[in-house]
């Protein structure tokens, strides 16, 4: 038992965040599927994107590393955390913003047309059942 706890401790310290991000991802996907409200779906979608962003950023973490903004010309690679995931995730954030924006616009339009954003109440279901 104690051995198990020890293992778990080691695991959480070293890799726990992966677990958390992946669970967050799964929960978000689950929420997207389970929620009947389109707005909630959209929020879950955002959560999913955030979880991926966290996931990437954990790779770039370095013990003892600081922000990837050079202080001086003299550089050693260990002193700074990995800039690549940050750069990539900036792109991912912007992309997710764009997606969310489009999603919100669509929701507004749907609200205009159907008067609701509840999935059950939108009749004439867009092709799922016909």
């Amino acid at each position, binding site marked *: 038992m104690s051995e198990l706890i020890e293992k778990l401790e080691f*695991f959480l310290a*070293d*890799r*726990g*965040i*992966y*677990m958390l991000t*992946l*669970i967050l*991802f*799964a*929960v978000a996907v*689950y929420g997207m599927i*389970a929620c009947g409200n389109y707005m909630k779906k959209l929020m879950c979608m955002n959560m999913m994107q955030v979880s991926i962003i966290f996931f990437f950023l*954990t*790779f*770039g*973490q*370095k*013990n*003892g*590393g600081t*922000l*990837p*903004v*050079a*202080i001086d*010309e003299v*550089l*050693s*690679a*260990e002193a*700074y955390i*990995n*800039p*690549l*995931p*940050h*750069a*990539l995730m*900036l*792109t991912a954030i*912007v*992309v997710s*913003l*764009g*997606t969310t*924006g*489009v999603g*919100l*616009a*669509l929701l*507004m*339009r749907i609200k*205009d047309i159907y008067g609701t954003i509840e999935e059950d109440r939108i009749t004439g279901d867009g092709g799922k059942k016909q």
Partner: protein
Amino acid sequence: MKENKSRKKLAAGLIIVIIAVGTAAVKIGAFLPTIGDADTPANSYVANYYITNAVKETHSYNIVTAVLADYRGFDTLFETCVLFLSALVTMMVLFGKEKVPKMPVKNLAEDKYSAAFGGDIMDASFRIVVPIILIYGIYVLFHGEISLGGGFQAGALIACAYLLDRIIPSIRMGRGKIKEETALIIASMGAFFYVITGILPMFNGGNFLEFAKLPFGSSLAAESIVKLHTAGILMIEVGVTVCVMGVIIAILEVVLERTDFDE
């Protein structure tokens, strides 16, 4: 009752999902690199090149900016395009075939206090913030290579300044409004400026976005090449700023036009 039941179902599903993925994640996690380890492939291969060479090659102290604007500038171009595109799509979606009829502009004098947003007089105080945010936005834009920041943040800040100015309804209703189409054009000009910055080196024998070959009277000296990189990064940051600004303003105007906040 019914709702309660479905909620319980959802919760049960959630727990199952968490357990399942948690177990899977434990399994996978064991093979993922240790967090914080400097010797993982992710932290040592290409990343180290960026860290050790960014300042030398691009003169951008912010390595993230160097990666974003120079090494992977092509990604950023399309990232900007994504924003432009989302504004475009938002406009196209919300300006449906049957446009929502615009509310007639009300006579503000009639209903001064309820129409005014923070109170007629207080609204004035918002405006103190606008120039400060603007100058901060410009600061963020031009210090992207030294400090944190860059085109996206700067564009957002400048758009925010406009937003503040725009949603304050009192006194100057209808003045200084940027039409959503104009905003979109501004955004496209920003993105196009980025593209132009990328195309310029092609006239000088370089590849697309190869800042080292920008036709600004470069000599072969390493120093001037670094300067060209700085110039290139600055140019695309300006493009990004303009684009982001236009995008946010366009989306904002579209949304404002439809929702019509001021009853």
